[in-house]
């Protein structure tokens, strides 16, 4: 069954790079959404939930870590898998955001293989 994907990053360039890399990974999504920060992502998720969210951490208005916390309070987002994508590689940050409800963490530089490895478990 085809899945839906949302990419959350304040950089339009990075959203396109992520989208391109996801496609290179061979994973297929029947619907893809984009959002420029955590707040916009939550609004879109409440209007139309997706299966998987790839989310940056450092963003204006609402960061990725805040978004994870808020998403876990919303009924329609309980089943959404949220994977953080960031250059931040501090172990304490990764542990913290995973404890807040993230389902995975991908550090940059990312590759198609890395997306395949991290997202494939959520595709079935």
């Amino acid at each position, binding site marked *: 069954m085809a899945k839906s994907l949302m990419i959350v990053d304040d*950089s*339009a*360039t*990075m959203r*396109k*790079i992520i*989208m*391109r*890399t996801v*496609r*290179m990974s*061979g994973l297929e999504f029947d619907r893809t959404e984009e959002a420029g920060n955590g707040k916009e992502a939550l609004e879109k998720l409440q209007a139309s939930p997706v299966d998987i969210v790839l989310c940056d951490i*450092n963003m204006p208005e609402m960061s990725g870590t805040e978004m994870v916390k808020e998403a876990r309070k919303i009924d329609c987002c309980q089943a959404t898998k949220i994977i953080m994508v*960031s*250059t*931040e*590689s*501090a172990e304490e940050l990764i542990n913290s955001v995973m404890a807040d409800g993230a389902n995975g963490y991908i*550090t*940059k*530089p*990312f*590759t*198609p293989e890395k997306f395949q490895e991290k997202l494939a478990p959520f595709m079935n």
Partner: protein
Amino acid sequence: MSCPSEQLVASLDTLSLHAFEAFCEDIAAMFGNTAECTQDSAGHGALSDLKRQFKKLAAVNQVQTQGVMDGTFQILLDQAGLFVLAGVFVMLPEKRVLETIRSGTLKDADYINDAIKEVGNLLVGSWDRVFREELKDHKHFKQADTFVGSIWDDPESHIGLHAEQDCRYVICRMKVDEFPEFKCAAVFPETLFETRSAGKSPEESTAQEKPAPTAETEPDSQTPESAFTVAGDKSDPPAAEVTPSVIEEASADTPAPITEAPPVMESERDEPMPGPVSEAIAHLTRQEPMQAESEPALTGAKLPSLTAAAIMNPAVLWLEPEQTVEEALSQMQRHNIGYILIGRDGHLEGLVSRSDIAAAISPYLRPVFAHWRRPVDDATLKIRIQWFMSRTVHTISPDAPLEKIMQTMMQHAVRGLPVMDTDGQILGLVTVYEVFAALLNRSGLCLTGRPHQAPPGVR
């Protein structure tokens, strides 16, 4: 009096090189490019002593650091570096990247500002990872800000350091794919090390002494140095200086924005070598005197009434520079045309052809993408036209005779000429197909229909 942590300072050269090398590996992993770097030089002195290396546009990433260093330091990319790396991120056509390396303006950089910031984000991430692995007590690097422009008119305002600020620096040379080598540097203000009192552990120092923010810190009056004290200065060999010197000569320190530079009329245009069509025109032009009696239709003298205005296609299609490859491709396919004029409000800024479109999608011909290559790719289709359009556009006046049209096409190896009147208004477009049609009709051969592929203009 405070003194630098000798151990930290001694390791900065190696750490910085490792961090730049890690960035190269990250670029290679994410984008499939080849990237490598070597140390150029290292030392300390006034910030202004870096002016020679970074005299034109530069991208300066201000990095907040916590842990063994507390404060802000800077990672610089020179003009070639910022355009090459941002170009890699958004997969700009190689031709466009090379143009901006030579003569890119602040406005060119502004168009890809988002990509430049993302380059900085990845750069800081690479640095953070290396310092975390190799430097005890390092806590965190964070990209605080990215300045893009010329540093030197007001460095304190632009990057938080004044021109005579005492700094330690590490300069590296980086090369990505076959693009020209460029310079990158890390600049550490001496104030970063002042809290490291001798005999104190980093934890003690961090807890007891917090330096003022770098931008607000007065220069260290005790250690001013008028020139860099270079450790292991590896001056550029003559061959390596060729490209940078070309760059410096080709663009001014404060180049004019693109919009202020009108398209160059009737001058050299960067076009591929003439193909069969151009050769056919050349043949026709060369044969004129010989065929004057037997083929009157091919002589300029026998075609006085055939001017550009008479044969041009008045229905031309316009797009704006900010529109995308996808829109240009769509319009070309929908109207079955080979050229689109680029500009706004009738002001011609460039011309895009089918071959320009081919250049835009050429990155996907790289072997590294063979595994995942697709007929079309969203990322490529979203590239703005301005990045691959031809900015030097040759035009022709409406009263130019057919002979002049053919000569102009031959001289500049172009296949399409916008027809522009004395007021700068574009009246239409003449391509080789209009020329052929005019010649065939004049010689008594009836031309019906239009070629199926790549005809000009919109009917």
